[in-house]
């Protein structure tokens, strides 16, 4: 069965016509299939970004059930994004794609790991990955649009699913244990639920911002800082000449030399929480703000009583109790997998043990009492 599938893939590879990247500045005739976007190409059993699109990754990414992510950005010819410290302004027509996948072993079992398995030249080897979904963010004249595409089992095509989808997966970890994952492909509203980080301003990209992108990346021609590379490619204007002044989150999972535990924890909370928990985001109603601009104090959860957490409080009295992770609502909620308790509310069904570990160690390291 497996060999047959592989054979079919090889057969198809090389003979497919790759459509050019799709420029869709307006209108809602969104393609039903992902291939029509022309962001990814297949060759010799690999799937990779097309030459016109830039792959990228982030310092500390959002956790989504241990899925790996292949991210690309494409901008219309002769256009560029302009740099801003908080966010970039992307030209109309920009397409961001994010493909969620797991790696597979020779038996076809899905693996739980955080390895980067992308070949800088050839991309992802289809026989060794299971593609789950690809999310498209499209910048139109009216603003950004989020579109979820779900891959078929044979990894031939992904189809637009406005209402999302779900998959029961089993992941094999390095110790040979399996972990069940109830993977949820978000519906288009749920995409917007996270991506509307400022109420009333609609959807915006979350990842491709200076502090997340400011890192080295393995391009086909070697390692380069992503911001500088984008600039050299003519895709980003106004990058400060000195990268020293550009914000930079901690590198996940292995921090750079000198990146403190606090920096790792704040980077993690930034990537996983601040799209809602910021002064203008959907999580603002809780009064808990975990964005980089909020100082570590009451608003950041320190000795702060939960407001409308309901059972999410876990019978704990404050969001962050210095020195006591097991008395902190924050830890209770990131450790939970109950959808009515867990944080983030969407995007995971498994606990991120490694993320929880960083937060636990950070809260344990805080001095003082409530």
């Amino acid at each position, binding site marked *: 069965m497996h060999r047959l599938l592989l054979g079919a893939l090889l057969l198809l590879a090389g003979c497919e016509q790759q459509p050019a990247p799709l420029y869709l500045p307006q209108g809602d005739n969104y393609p039903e299939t992902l291939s029509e976007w022309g962001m990814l190409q297949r060759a010799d059993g690999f799937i990779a970004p097309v030459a016109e699109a830039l792959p990228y990754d982030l310092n500390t990414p959002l956790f989504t059930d241990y899925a790996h992510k292949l991210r690309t950005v494409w901008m219309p010819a002769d256009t560029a994004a302009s740099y801003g410290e908080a966010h970039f302004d992307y030209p109309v027509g920009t397409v961001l794609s994010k493909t969620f996948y797991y790696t597979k072993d020779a038996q076809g079992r899905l693996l739980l790991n955080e390895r980067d398995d992308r070949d800088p030249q050839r991309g992802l080897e289809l026989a060794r990955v299971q593609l789950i979904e690809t999310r498209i963010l499209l910048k139109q004249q009216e603003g950004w649009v989020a579109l979820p595409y779900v891959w078929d089992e044979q990894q031939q095509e992904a189809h637009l699913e406005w209402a999302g989808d779900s998959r029961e997966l089993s992941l094999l970890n390095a110790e040979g244990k399996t972990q069940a994952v109830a993977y949820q492909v978000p519906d288009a509203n749920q995409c917007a639920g996270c991506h509307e980080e400022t109420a009333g301003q609609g959807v915006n990209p979350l990842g491709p911002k200076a502090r997340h992108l400011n890192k080295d990346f393995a391009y086909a021609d070697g390692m380069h800082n992503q911001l500088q590379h984008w600039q050299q490619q003519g895709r980003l204007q106004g990058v400060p000449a000195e990268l020293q002044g550009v914000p930079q989150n901690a590198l996940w999972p292995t921090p750079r030399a000198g990146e403190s535990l606090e920096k790792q924890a704040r980077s993690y909370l930034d990537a996983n929480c601040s799209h809602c928990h910021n002064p203008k985001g959907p999580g603002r109603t809780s009064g808990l703000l975990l964005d980089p601009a909020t100082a570590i104090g009451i608003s950041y959860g320190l000795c702060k009583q939960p407001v409308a957490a309901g059972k999410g409080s876990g019978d704990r009295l404050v969001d962050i109790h210095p020195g006591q992770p097991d008395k902190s609502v924050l830890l209770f909620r990131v450790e939970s997998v109950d959808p*009515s308790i867990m944080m983030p509310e969407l995007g995971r069904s498994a606990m991120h043990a490694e993320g929880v570990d960083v937060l636990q160690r950070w809260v344990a390291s805080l001095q003082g009492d409530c």
Partner: protein
Amino acid sequence: MRLAPLSVLALSVLLAACSEEPAPVADLDFQKDLQTQLIKAKPGSVIEIPAGTYQLDRSLSLKVSGVTIKGAGMDKTILSFKGQKSGAEGLLVDASDFTIEDIAFEDTLGDSLKVVGGKNIIIRRVRTEWTNGPATENGAYGIYPVQTENTLIDGAVAIGASDAGIYVGQSRNVVVRNSRAERNVAGIEIENTIDADVYDNVATGNTGGILVFNMPNLPQAGRVTRVFRNKIEGNNHKNFGHKGTPVASVPAGSGVVINSNDDVEVFDNDIGDHKTANVIISSYFSTGYTDLSTAESFDPYPEGIHIHGNRFGPAGDSPDHLELKALKVSQFGLNGRLPDILWDGYVNLDILVDGKLPADRAICINNGEAGMINVDGPNNYKNISTDMTDYRCSLPPLPAVKLASADADQGA
């Protein structure tokens, strides 16, 4: 736009006969259809859901303004979320000019109907219920508009929430009326909200009937709430809220609880059969938190409180919380009762004039024979007093909420 009726109900019935409590089978086609309609809705869209019980396993959401969702009746069109797999609510709405009516949400994992940040919200004849009855593992809120403006909740029913059945948070200009809140921790809770009218409701079998609260560290402090013509009776359910939540500190047997909020008028209600007190007036300090957990700008004192013309039934015979039990026995004897109104006694010393609160910041009880006990919380219950002299006063009536959707509906 009509959704196809479905056969899942028959299937569930079939399954139910085979084993005890089978996991409900979600009607994925219905769910996908409905969510797709919600995503593709345009301003003016009316999404009608015919009578039937529909099993869903993930949250619904709406982000388009100007949409109406209509069922065939709160006992006829039932969205059941038993066995829900994902999402923190039943329906999450982030839109304005939204109307939902004649529909029920049952057994959501988290909140049932949450509306965040919209204007002109109408929630009419909607039922939210946890069908297993009161339980700590139930979702927190039934009907939950937060940071909304111009919101009407009319003829709703909320049962079994582990926090508040009807919870209005950080909103402006709100009417809650003709609704029934039963067997929740808090029946109806108005929190950090400016200008709310709560009238002609029934709150019964909750831990606390109607709450008017202010919580610290939020963008908006609440004020100006009128609670009138409600029937608030027999709210004696054991508190099954979660520690750390504001309602967890509410003693079982509380009729109306005003906490840290200002300009609250409670009048013309029938309030009775409460083991702790018909009315509790308290500060944030009585919720078990310290100064450390509040921003400096937060005002923890209830001020401008006016209790008048209510009809009080018996209360105070068996208060919750050990301190109150001991206090009752020592002050009023084994068979005695606490007075109708209980106040924790915290006042802002900085605003006192000649040792008294300025007239407009006062706590005024003008309710016939009803008495108030000041339990002197600040001094650890040392100088408990039932002397009403300083509290027999009146405040000018608060203005009625002006809400077009409420006026339009009057008598309809």
